[in-house]
């Protein structure tokens, strides 16, 4: 078996007296959806922030695509192909949908110190952007200002931006947050279709989505990994049931 694309070893992050992440080991391989679940405050977002470089770990290392990225800043990691979407929708409200995605395309260029030429007329940005919008089902909304999109559409736009980064790995922070049942189902189908092409690290509260998509599940509680394995194993794990899945999983099984 080849080494995982993303490998975190012993990631530890403290905020004062609180240990938000305690010696977390995690790997994501090609072709996989690896879901991270856990109750609120378990340290999922802290973990994502360390993986994409917004937080520096107190201890531990992160390897991505064969190199040590532990000390690299966020922007450099993004250029290496580590694409993150955000839990709280953070598209650029004053830009149109297609311009949001075009900016993500632009982020993969060598530099953007180009001061003169109008970027909006540039097919090198607009064409890949339109393709990403089409992929997530927003092609007909491309010239709508992002601020005017419905909530679910903003979540789709977030994903389009991540896709436009030509990612080697997607870090998705609750892509279904605040979505209706139908929208969630559409997103699950979309993500299922993506995973052959780009592996996904998925942080998500929607258990139906997690169990529908994940090949591996890691469960966090109070900053520690309490279980990690394929979904069937996680379902059976007594500690996980008690700590987190509770009645839902039991009912689902029954």
């Amino acid at each position, binding site marked *: 078996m080849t080494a995982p694309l993303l490998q975190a070893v012993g990631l530890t992050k403290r905020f004062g007296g609180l240990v938000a992440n305690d010696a977390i080991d995690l790997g994501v391989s090609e072709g996989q959806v690896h879901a991270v679940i856990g109750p609120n405050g378990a340290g999922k977002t802290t973990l994502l922030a360390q993986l*994409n470089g*917004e937080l520096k770990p107190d201890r531990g290392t992160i390897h991505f695509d064969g190199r040590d990225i532990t000390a690299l*800043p*966020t*922007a*450099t990691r*993004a*250029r290496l192909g580590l694409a*993150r979407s*955000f839990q709280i929708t*953070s*598209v*650029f*409200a*004053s*830009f149109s949908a297609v*311009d949001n995605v*075009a*900016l*993500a395309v*632009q*982020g*993969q*260029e060598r530099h*953007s*110190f*180009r*001061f*003169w*030429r*109008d*970027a*909006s007329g*540039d097919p090198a*940005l607009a064409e890949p952007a339109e393709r990403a919008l089409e992929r997530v089902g927003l092609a007909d909304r491309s010239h709508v200002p992002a601020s005017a999109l419905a909530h679910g559409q903003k979540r789709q736009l977030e994903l389009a*931006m991540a896709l436009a*980064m030509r990612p080697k790995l997607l870090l998705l922070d609750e892509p279904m947050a605040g979505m209706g049942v139908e929208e969630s189902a559409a997103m699950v189908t979309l993500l299922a279709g993506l995973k052959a092409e780009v592996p996904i690290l998925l942080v998500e509260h929607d258990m139906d989505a997690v169990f529908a998509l994940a090949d591996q599940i890691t469960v966090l509680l109070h900053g520690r990994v309490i279980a990690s394995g394929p979904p069937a194993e996680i379902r059976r794990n007594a500690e996980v049931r008690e700590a987190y899945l509770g009645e839902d999983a039991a009912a689902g099984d029954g």
Partner: protein
Amino acid sequence: MAGARRRKIALACLLGFLVLLPPVALAAGEPFYVSLFTRILITALAAASLNLILGFGGMVSFGHAAFVGIGGYVVGIAFVHASDGTLFLGLLPGTVSGFVVLPLAMIVAGLVALPIGAICLRTTGISFIMITLAFAQMLYYLMISLRRYNGQDGIAVWQRSELPWPIDLDDRMSFYYVALAVLLAFLYGTHRMVNSRFGRVLRAAKDNERRVRALGFHAYRYKLAAFVIAGAAAGLSGALLVNSTGFVGPSYLEWHRSGDLIVMVVLGGVGTLFGPVLGAGALMLLEEFIPELLNGLADGLGEHWKIFLGPILILIVLYARRGLMGLVDGSLGGSLLRRLRPEPPPGKPPRRRR
């Protein structure tokens, strides 16, 4: 869009006014207005350069006048050495050649802006405001301490920068059109810049810098580049201002000059292309004429003219984020009317019976 159309018509009128002003004023025997508007155009350049970082990049610099002052001192110091034949730092001869001092003012101001920006841009928000102010104050006191250049008293620059025929800064009309051309060139450059790839990164970083980094941009570098460009343009404004007033001193770098520039940008419309021009014009015309008007009402009232400016600013901040530009394209009137119209909020529950 009606707003865009109104804006175009208004800007065409503004341009026409600015182009025709000198011959009309001279024909009417009021050369003073040509000089006044020359100063307004030069100050508008400084305000527009601040708007590049404040309006489009979200960087509220409270030390922008320092770069205006640096540009001014380049002209002043070059003049001192040219007039007494000494060498600057024992190395460089002085000059009054516009081809040398005007670009040099930009380069020096940009070079000063580079390390200052590099440090200040490590912070955001209030810290950024305070640290830019602190650097500006340091430069202010540095200028006061320069005894060779008359410290507090500054330098009387009685020879204007020389430019090739037909440009002659000693001629009011010629100087006015130079200032107008430089301002319009900068505004056009800004227009190109904010719509370029660079500008998109800058504007996006104003919205959400964290997101910009996650897309792969080293946001800091782009903000720093904008800070240096704005500093250089402010330096050019300072160099022209010295030519216009015949004086440069530490007062150029005073903190309330930086404050005035912020006021001009806010008054005119943050993040709009022509807003700073309107803001500079409005503030400087008020400054020129309100005191006189007030003194006509009551003796000594003119000194306190800023009392009247304060409420105007508060109204603009409260009701019109786009300032005077909002007035031009009609969005100010709309929002003001909406706020003033007494309208019961929808869905208000009926009053309870006693």
